[in-house]
């Protein structure tokens, strides 16, 4: 907690993130490159053929989509309970990326599904849950944009994020229940052969690093924008 607050000061945050960012970016590129290479050189799955490669693009996207919402919820908690100054900016910055990764997961899920199911969308439990997650992101971003007073918007969005994070497990449970009621079995089953494991882990790490890199950049941009605005208004930087 102390650590978090030491970097609550925008100044310190800019210094730390500035130092760390190049390494994040490099690590991202390395992981993604290695993961993609291994992923595409993997032997084709006997059932799914070469489209198994989409697994390496789809699953990590889903993982980041959920992790990003978790990050937003954590920042919201920090903001509401401990009044950590940067957490509002951080939460707002994470949302578009969370939404993008969710959308990516949905699109790749549909592309992956076409050869398997014959059609792009079959209301599979997992994909349906992620569709709802996408709406949660959109609602969160819409609320930020709608309220003019930034402090009020931040706190309202924080409340919404916390309400959302509590509901997400319930939503997933209910969608799973709905799926078994209507279809009997979940369609995408989850056994991963070991030869797929390494590329998958590399891609997941790569995606997380990609998210972290983009997130840090966006937070830095937001801080710099605020400084620029303050300078233009004639106040302190």
């Amino acid at each position, binding site marked *: 907690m102390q650590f978090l607050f030491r970097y609550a000061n925008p100044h310190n945050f800019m210094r730390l993130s500035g130092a760390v960012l190049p390494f994040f970016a490099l690590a991202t590129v390395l992981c993604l490159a290695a993961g993609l290479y291994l992923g595409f050189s993997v032997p084709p799955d006997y059932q799914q053929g070469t489209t198994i490669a989409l697994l390496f693009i789809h699953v990590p996207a889903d993982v980041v989509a959920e992790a990003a919402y978790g990050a937003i919820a954590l920042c919201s908690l920090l903001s509401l309970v401990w009044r950590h100054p940067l957490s509002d900016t951080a939460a707002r910055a994470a949302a578009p990326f969370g939404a993008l990764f969710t959308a990516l997961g949905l699109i790749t899920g549909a592309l992956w599904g076409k050869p398997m199911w014959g059609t792009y969308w079959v209301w599979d439990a997992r994909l349906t849950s992620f569709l709802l997650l996408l709406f949660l992101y959109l609602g969160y971003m819409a609320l930020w944009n709608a309220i003019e*007073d930034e*402090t009020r918007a931040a706190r309202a969005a924080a409340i919404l994020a916390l309400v959302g994070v509590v509901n997400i497990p319930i939503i997933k449970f209910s969608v799973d229940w709905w799926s078994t009621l209507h279809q009997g079995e979940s369609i995408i089953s989850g056994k991963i052969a070991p030869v797929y494991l390494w590329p998958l882990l590399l891609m997941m790490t790569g995606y997380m690093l990609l998210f972290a890199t983009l997130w840090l950049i966006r937070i830095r941009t937001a801080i710099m924008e605020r400084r620029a605005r303050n300078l233009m*208004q004639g*106040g302190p930087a």
Partner: protein
Amino acid sequence: MITFLTAEKLACARGERRLFDGLNFRVKAGQALAVEGANGAGKTSLLRLIAGFLAPLSGRLIVKIADKEDDDAEERGKLVGWLGHQDGLKPQLTVAEQLDFFASLYRSKAGAAVLEQVGLARQADLPCRYLSAGQRRRLALARLLVSRRPLWLLDEPFAALDVNGQGLVAHLMAHHCGEGGIIIAATHEPLGLSNESLKL
């Protein structure tokens, strides 16, 4: 019965703009404080701060009752009788319904006597949409009386009232202070009481 209300180094901001800083004052039982200043200077914000709606940027507001001191905003709100800019009246409800609602809400009783006092006895069954601006303010005053709160926060108490109405307000305020209550009023005009003044 509040003994003192003290403000220590109060600072308040609205959005990015700092309204006031290092504000100090003390009002004791039976006293009135007139808050003066240009529009937008922060008079309403100060009232909302005292009521507990707004949190100060820094500083404290302390309420002393007998021997106990408390600076909690929510507790302070329970002592406040509020007369704001807006009327808080629903057009579809009648005068009597409106007053009974607020009376019950504040765990108090509204007799016909209160309506008499503010000169709305004949309008008891009139839906509020048919009241004039002055009559609406009188109803708000009745509501204030019925709430039976020691700390009155009044935002432009004389607004929209004719000479009789203004006389009524002055009379009610004098009575309230006479009973040991405290009044803090944002106003452009003199209160007509011996009161302290605070310029924002």
